[in-house]
């Protein structure tokens, strides 16, 4: 067990736990404004201080974790649910016309600058968390499709797949029984990395006001709101910024650690 994996898993679980706790309990209701109590520095009542509306920053971060994680998770889910089957199909029919179409379609999506298109989608269909999920999700599809195809192709040349074909199993069945279980761990690693990119994308979208709408809390929006107040109350900007940083760092460390752990070549060298 590498140190990075432990630290990464700890950071990730910490924020997931924060998000879970927010469903049951938050220190203060974030929809009640208390202007008289605004911009308080961290104290015993408000551990992380209050913002310009007098809302408790800790409560906002907890609710924001919920939004960020939900949006990123669903977006990765969309990417995996569509991308992995597409990649498996492409690999099974490698060299065919359909494979060509799928992969060139992937190239097409890859060719667009993802965040700009996400902005376009949310601007056209309205700014909301759901549209942010769809926009980020679409750009996750080709990542998974291409990775799946790339790692599935050499597996199709392996003898155990040949012998499954000799047994008369269909391409779909071989993909499900033989190819998928052998690439699953790579998908988990990639999923972790895409998850951290999703958190960043969600924060970017809500920073420019195209993500989750108020009163739903989100880290990106908190940053945007605090922008003009940095000189007066730096903690209001620091807290959501650090939250994004630590969450992304945690996921990346975890992805790295998982990759090392699943890669048999690295494992062999260690023993």
């Amino acid at each position, binding site marked *: 067990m590498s140190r990075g994996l432990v630290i990464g898993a700890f950071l990730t679980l910490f924020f997931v736990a924060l998000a879970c706790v927010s469903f049951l309990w938050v220190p203060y209701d974030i929809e009640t404004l208390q202007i008289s109590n605004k911009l308080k520095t961290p104290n015993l009542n408000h551990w992380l201080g209050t913002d310009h509306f007098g809302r408790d920053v800790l409560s906002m971060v907890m609710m924001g974790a919920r939004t960020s994680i939900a949006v990123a998770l669903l977006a990765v889910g969309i990417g995996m649910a569509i991308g992995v089957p597409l990649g498996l199909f492409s690999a099974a029919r490698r060299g065919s016309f359909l494979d060509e179409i799928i992969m060139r379609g992937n190239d097409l999506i890859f060719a667009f600058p993802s965040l700009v298109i996400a902005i376009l989608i949310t601007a056209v269909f309205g700014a909301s968390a759901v549209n942010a999920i769809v926009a980020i999700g679409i750009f996750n599809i080709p990542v998974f499709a291409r990775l799946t195809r790339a790692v599935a192709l050499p597996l199709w040349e392996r003898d155990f797949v040949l012998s499954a074909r*000799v047994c008369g199993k269909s391409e779909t069945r071989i993909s499900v029984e033989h190819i998928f279980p052998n690439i699953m761990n790579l998908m988990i690693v990639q999923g972790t990395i895409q998850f951290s990119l999703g958190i960043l994308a969600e924060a970017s979208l809500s920073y420019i006001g195209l993500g989750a709408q108020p009163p739903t809390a989100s880290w990106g929006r908190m940053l945007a709101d605090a922008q003009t107040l940095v000189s007066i109350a730096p903690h209001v900007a620091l807290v959501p910024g650090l939250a994004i940083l630590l969450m992304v760092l945690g996921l990346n460390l975890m992805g790295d650690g998982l990759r090392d752990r699943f890669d048999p070549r690295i494992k062999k060298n260690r023993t």
Partner: protein
Amino acid sequence: MSLLSIEHLSLSIGDTKILHDVSIDVCPGEIVAITGESGSGKSLTALAVMALLPRGSVTDGHIFLENTDILRTSERDLCRMRGCSMGMVFQEPMTALNPVQTIGDQVAETIIIHEKTSKLDANIRATAMLRRVGLNVNPSRYPHELSGGQRQRVVIAMAIALRPKLLIADEPTTALDVTTQATILELLKDLVTEFDMGLLIITHDLAVVAEIANKIAVMQEGHIVEAAATYDLLHNMRHPYTKSLFNAATHKVILPEYIPAPPLLSVESVTRTYNLPRVTVFGSRPTFQALAGVSFHISHGERVGLVGESGCGKSTLTRAILGLEEVQEGQILLDGQPVFTKKSLNLPARRKMQVVFQDPYSSFNPRHRVDRLIAEPLHVLNNSIVGKYIEKAVSKSLEDVGLTPEDGTKYIHEFSGGQRQRIAIARALIIEPELIIFDEAVSALDVSIRAQVLDLIAGLCRKRQLAYLFISHDLSVVRTITDRVMVMQSGKIVEQGDTEQVFSNPQHAYTQKLIAAAPKLPEVTYNVEVI
């Protein structure tokens, strides 16, 4: 005075002791062979001499190259010695060469590193060295433009560019075809005499050892169990392990009598052509004919061998028979039914045929349990098979190949290479096929394991009527395990006939060349007294 003397070398990595008290001497102009099965420590002995041991190795003893103790020399001095006073030839010539450098540059590099000389001079010497190793191609060629044998010549040229006193060759011909192997061995022998080098050759192939070496050391589990001059060792074997090794290499199985029967598989003038990538943008695509009008029959219960060198179309033929690939002309019938119909394989025909592949490590999905792996072919039978029957069939197949039903609950990584090949055979047997295709099924196995698997196959033939097509590049194996043999060259079957007849009296020029090139084990005699 010997050139290299390894004295009481012991090696351990972590807590595992790998070499125990190994002592070998190599004199100038002498060829010493280390032989043994996989895991015996022969390659690590060679790496120890080059001081290229893996990290964490702890050594004890001495390795003297002339008067330098390699184990007690600094890395800087070792760098000066490697390539200069000792050279090494590796097994796989493709991975031993840098694919983006020309062969001339790679040979010249060795010279430039060790001698203060101009690039021009190095290039001239590299060209001369390439010619010396029998490679008459332009030095500005890249490795991928050469054949396997030519690449191995480049590797040899690199190793001997500075005329080292000691050359180490680790399985130098294992990846090559028999005819190429013969020429490379010849070249190595010539170079040893010409340069008065010492050659330490590592190989598992006893026939190669017997043919080339002056002295043989047999290793088992890190010990040298027997070492002697070649003639003495072959005619006066002392250690039981050496005897069992040579016995296994010349192992003969007893096949039951073949009773003539109607044809089971018939391949009729099959042709398969592949399109190659375009050379020019608008030109037509060149083609490669992998199979050119191949026809043959295999009868019920007949054991047929197929031999040929790499690229002769063996693999294409296997895939075509298995119905994994469509053929352009001709047809393949199994018991009167085509194996490939309407763009897909024909399941009724498939039920009568199974396959065993070469590599015991890639033939199984590592994520499934053995019972599930073995039961996989049942898929082609009707779906009426249910739990109880599957369990019974799996245990029966496991027992047929000498394993226990309990082995079904394990995963494949818990088995050795030989056991895996048994499991592969169990998987092929489960649907009681009439025809099994053994695609180089014993080529990756050590001799003693190979002998056991061959016995297993012969035993199965005695138990039930079984026809098989045994594809191999190893002529001695084909000779014992088949009734009839076919020789393939560039997509055509050039000769076929009764195995003994083809081997003792080959008609076609290619068959003659093939049989002449294959190294043969001389008759060995055993010493009666056992230590």
